[in-house]
């Protein structure tokens, strides 16, 4: 197992995964991207991720069920919920059910990086988020 932060990203919008995978890789995350919640759950049944990022609203299985699954299976994992603008009540519910944090669509890559850095800090394995910031400023 590498030292990299293990991240699972679940969103039924393919572009989200396509863009965030390289964005998160830059801050030292190994990202597995899923669009289908079933497959994501199957994978998580076997592998423990440090951070799980999931959209709340999906067709088959929604983010809440994913959150409950992770909380039962891997209590150490941090779950970050992606919510729609109009679903703050759901976000609050997610927090009560033990989500680490939530982030509302539309968001910038850095917004998620910041939340993931916070999660990494909480897990005791800080990642060098600042370095990316500095690189952007310099580049």
């Amino acid at each position, binding site marked *: 197992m590498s030292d990299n932060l293990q991240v699972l990203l679940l969103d039924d*919008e393919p*572009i*989200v995964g*396509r*863009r*965030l995978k*390289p*964005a998160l890789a830059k801050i030292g995350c190994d990202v597995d991207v899923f669009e289908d919640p079933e497959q994501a759950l199957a994978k998580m049944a076997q592998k423990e991720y440090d951070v799980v990022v999931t959209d709340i*609203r999906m*067709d088959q299985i*929604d983010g809440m069920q994913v959150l409950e699954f992770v909380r039962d299976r891997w209590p150490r994992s941090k779950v970050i919920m992606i919510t*729609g*603008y*109009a*679903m703050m009540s759901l976000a609050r519910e997610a927090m009560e059910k033990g989500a680490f944090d939530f982030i509302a*669509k*539309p*968001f*910038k*890559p*850095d917004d998620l990086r910041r939340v993931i850095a916070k999660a990494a800090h909480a897990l005791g394995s800080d990642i060098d988020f600042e370095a990316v910031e500095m690189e*952007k400023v310099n*580049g």
Partner: protein
Amino acid sequence: MVEGSIQGNGQPPPEAGPQAEEEIEVQGRLGLARGAEQARRALLNRPRFSLRLQIFLGNALAFLIAIAIAIALVASFHRMESKIRFLEIVNDYVMEVEQARRFEKNFFLYGTNLSDAQDNVFKAENILSRNAEELAAIMGAGWREEMLPNLHRYEQLLEKLGQQPQSDQALSKQERRRVQSQVRGQGQQMVSAALGLLSKEKTALAEVLTRSRLLLFYSVGLLLLCMALNAYLLGSRMLSSINRFGQYAHRIASGDFTPLTPSKRYRDEFTELALAINSMIEELEDREAVLVQSHKMRAVGTLTAGVAHELNNPMNNITLTAHMLQEDYADLDDQERLEMIGDVVGEASRAKKIISNLLDFARESGSQLEPLDLPELLRETIALASNQIKLSGIKIDFQASGNLPRVHGDSQQLRQVFLNLILNAIDASSKGGQIQVLVLPADEPNYLAVKVIDSGSGIPAHILPSIFDPFFTTKGKGKGTGLGLSVSQGIVAKHGGRIRVSSQEKQGATFTVVLPVTTIPAELGAKK
């Protein structure tokens, strides 16, 4: 199961009569603006026969009959009067003649003076000549020949008899006896003729009396009959009009805003009422149009929440892609850059599509009637509500029978009705629930049915009769106006259809919209 206890339109749909007629009916219900002016002209363009005139004519007729009765009675009294006068005259005459005969008898018995008898004969003659006119009136011009000769003869005989025995022309005893018997016979004949006349005229008088009594009896009866007939005609005319207007009120209350058209060949005071009701209908229609529009805007408001949420996805995709493009621009090759720009373009058009449906629906448009493909209309409506459906985690199942005829209607308004039913069904359903939308031929021929079936908690039987009432809502404060179903009912009624609901508690509800099919061929209708 409470089935079909509520009907959108109070009345069953018209019997499936000749199709052409139905078409006219449907068009008639919708071409209202033109119809109002036409109805006004048709109402006014009739000869006037007012209630006031009918009352006047009825009274005038009764008055004429009364006058006729009075004239007939006066004439009859006049006749009776002259008959009575005649009887008096004849009576006087008879009295004089009888008096003369009494003197004649005295003369025979006691040899008294005959001049008294002659006096009486003279008086009798006097009576006759004095009342010549009255006698002529009753007996005709021949009365003289009938009465006078007898009298004169009697007079002559008396005179003959009265001559003194010692005079030259004195009669022999034998001759005297002959004259005596002649006098007696003549006197008797005169009295009996007069008495005969008297009794004949008495009978005639009695007849006239009876006849005038009958005349009075029948004419009063005729007058009463005439007045009763008048009252009946007037009353039934007013009652039928009042009943008719009662029916109009029910019809208008059920949402049918067809202007009133003439139902009689003449106009009267009720025509003014009909005109006033027609202008009220126009006013109501304007108001309902405002209500329909404002309710539509409410539906747009509901949809906007879903749209705003759905827009987040393309917005998020664009935001992420743009940021990554900016961040990694130098490190990416052309192919990757192009791919990312392509994603932005694609997501932008996706965003546009999400709002264009809603904008189409929200756009205020005039009422346009056209033959509509009902399954297609429902597909569009479901697409419009798709964000809401996705957001609520509900499945929608749409099924339409093949080869359905078209319905004639306003696509915007009907879409509003179906959207309302679907949004209601979404509200009623819990997460993971299912909504079924079916388009199929209705039970009655020439009608199509759209069923929106939810699997929610159902509608309690005690509120089922109220759900189409304006301002009735089961939703929380600020969530529903209670106008949705009422407005929908109005729209469907205007299309000649109706909305029904059946529900069983805990088993969901089924709303059925029944609409008449159009009989205009599709191509023909499309050219309009």
